[in-house]
């Protein structure tokens, strides 16, 4: 059930962003439409139907980021729960998401609901054309923000945050001498993008929103035209940007990387391209929140960050992985993802494996063989299940292969039922059959880039495949 601790006059995203800087000078710029924050003082994007969403558990399933942004601004504190659908949420998971979050209203920017959520009675359209009225945003809730992240089975994990946990790492605020114009290659419906959205709004700035329907070059030109000062993306986003002739269309003061391991090469490339910018790589995850930011231009992070320092965050390394305890971690999961979010001491195990060299720690990969392809997580078991469904396959091991473009790629080691199959010229044919099978059932980034036929795989005493951590 959604939370029921109703009080009046809570702070909300709207009240916080209103207090952070003059609204009329700030805007959200999308690829196809834009909204001045000043217009939200006397109007709204929900066609005057805000009251119908008060106290509700609302699924925000929009095509564009701008309309999702407006719905978040208008509904935080008003709705009891906001479920933020990422753009690629498979339709088959919608009934689970809606039922688990007890969703009873849907907001979309299409004339009909974007997602088919059974039993959700109220449907409200959200538009970047701001209509007068419908803007009593008096806040009664510390609204739950439900973020979806990929789970082992393909079914999304539903991570519970509030504005307070999401904005815990955002300091400063006030009105800087030159207001910041933020942007990110990310979609704001994922944790990394949402951080940037909240930084822009709560820091008194404006934001340029990216669009899946826009090329990297066009996005950079548009960001440059709006005078972007702060910009964030994964190392893979940045590698792509640096391959664009439009990389020089922006002149940012601050360049941020997160979501993947930032290696020295990408940090050096960015330094060369943007010599005047402050370049920082941050560690954050949907569950653990923002942990830290490294600004010295070097890969990895100082070992001195580990251990108790007082303050609102503590990092430790246990069994080789980074664990985080902070006020910015999620409150928990909705539903039963089959695992606890916090360990007994209140730490989130990030499953990101560390290696210490001298006075620094370096990220070396993920425990359990989870593969990060350009910021998108791949659980090897999910891919192995598809490969193992081929009648000639005995078993398979899906693992990571380093990529200078996307950070990592998926590759598979496959053991066939009859070893002769791999040798007798059937190999190429079988490889193509397995690939076809994967392409038919898996999203592109999960399909192995290569299949190697191997004579055997190591299985441990408990009968599990031995995966190399990292």
């Amino acid at each position, binding site marked *: 059930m959604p939370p029921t601790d109703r009080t009046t006059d809570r702070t909300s995203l709207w009240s916080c962003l209103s207090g952070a800087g003059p609204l009329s000078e700030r805007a959200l710029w999308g690829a196809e439409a834009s909204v001045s924050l000043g217009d939200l003082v006397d109007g709204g994007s929900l066609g005057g139907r805000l009251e119908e969403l008060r106290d509700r558990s609302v699924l925000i399933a929009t095509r564009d980021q701008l309309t999702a942004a407006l719905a978040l601004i208008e509904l935080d504190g008003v709705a009891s729960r906001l479920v933020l659908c990422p753009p690629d949420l498979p339709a088959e998971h919608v009934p689970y998401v809606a039922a688990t979050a007890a969703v009873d209203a849907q907001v979309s920017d299409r004339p009909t609901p974007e997602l088919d959520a059974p039993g959700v009675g109220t449907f409200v359209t959200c538009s970047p054309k701001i209509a007068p009225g419908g803007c009593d945003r008096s806040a009664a809730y510390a609204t739950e923000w439900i973020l979806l992240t990929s789970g082992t089975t393909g079914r999304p994990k539903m991570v519970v945050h509030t504005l307070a946990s999401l904005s815990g790492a955002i300091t400063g605020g006030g009105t800087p001498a030159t207001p910041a114009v933020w942007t990110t290659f990310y979609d704001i419906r994922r944790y990394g993008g949402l951080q940037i959205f909240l930084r822009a709004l709560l820091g008194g700035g404006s934001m340029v929103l990216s669009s899946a329907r826009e*090329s*990297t*070059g066009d996005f950079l030109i548009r960001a440059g035209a709006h005078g972007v000062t702060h910009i964030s993306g994964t190392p*893979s986003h940045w*590698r*792509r940007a*640096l*391959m*664009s*002739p439009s990389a020089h269309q922006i002149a940012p003061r601050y360049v941020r990387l997160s979501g993947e391991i930032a290696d*020295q*090469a990408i940090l*050096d*490339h960015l330094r*060369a391209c943007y010599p005047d910018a402050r370049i920082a790589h941050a560690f954050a995850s949907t569950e653990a929140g923002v942990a830290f930011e490294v600004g010295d231009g070097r890969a990895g992070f100082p070992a001195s960050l580990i251990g108790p320092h007082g303050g609102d965050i503590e990092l430790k390394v246990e069994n080789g992985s980074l664990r985080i305890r902070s006020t910015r971690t999620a409150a928990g999961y909705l539903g039963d993802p089959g695992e606890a979010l916090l360990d007994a001491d209140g730490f989130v195990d990030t499953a990101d494996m560390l290696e210490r060299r001298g006075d620094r720690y370096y990220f070396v990969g993920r425990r359990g063989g989870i593969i990060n*392809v*350009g910021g998108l997580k791949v659980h090897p078991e999910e891919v192995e299940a598809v490969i193992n469904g081929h009648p000639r396959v005995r078993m398979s091991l899906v693992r990571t*292969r380093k*990529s*200078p*473009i*996307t950070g990592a*790629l998926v590759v598979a080691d496959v053991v066939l039922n009859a070893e002769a199959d791999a040798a007798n010229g059937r190999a190429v044919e079988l490889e193509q059959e397995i*690939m076809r099978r994967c*392409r038919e059932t898996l999203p*592109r*980034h999960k399909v192995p*880039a*290569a299949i190697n036929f191997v004579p055997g795989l190591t299985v441990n005493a408990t009968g599990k495949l031995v995966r190399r951590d990292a």
Partner: protein
Amino acid sequence: MSVKGSVIAQFEQVAREQKKTLVPLSDDLVLLDSGLDSLCLAIIVARLEDALGVDPFDADADAAFPVTVGDFIRLYEDAAH
């Protein structure tokens, strides 16, 4: 096959596999306008490493990121020599 031939063959092969429409390749075509996305380019780089035994991105982190198809081919030609 020449290095250039190998590179172009991989572009065509991966475009087919990934169901992407490849723009006619020329030296000054911008890579990001070729019809291939980052995932395609990542697969091409991995396959070229297997085929040619070189990963020019790894070998020389100082080299600028390739912007055009010509830049990309030159990276491999230089690394192969």
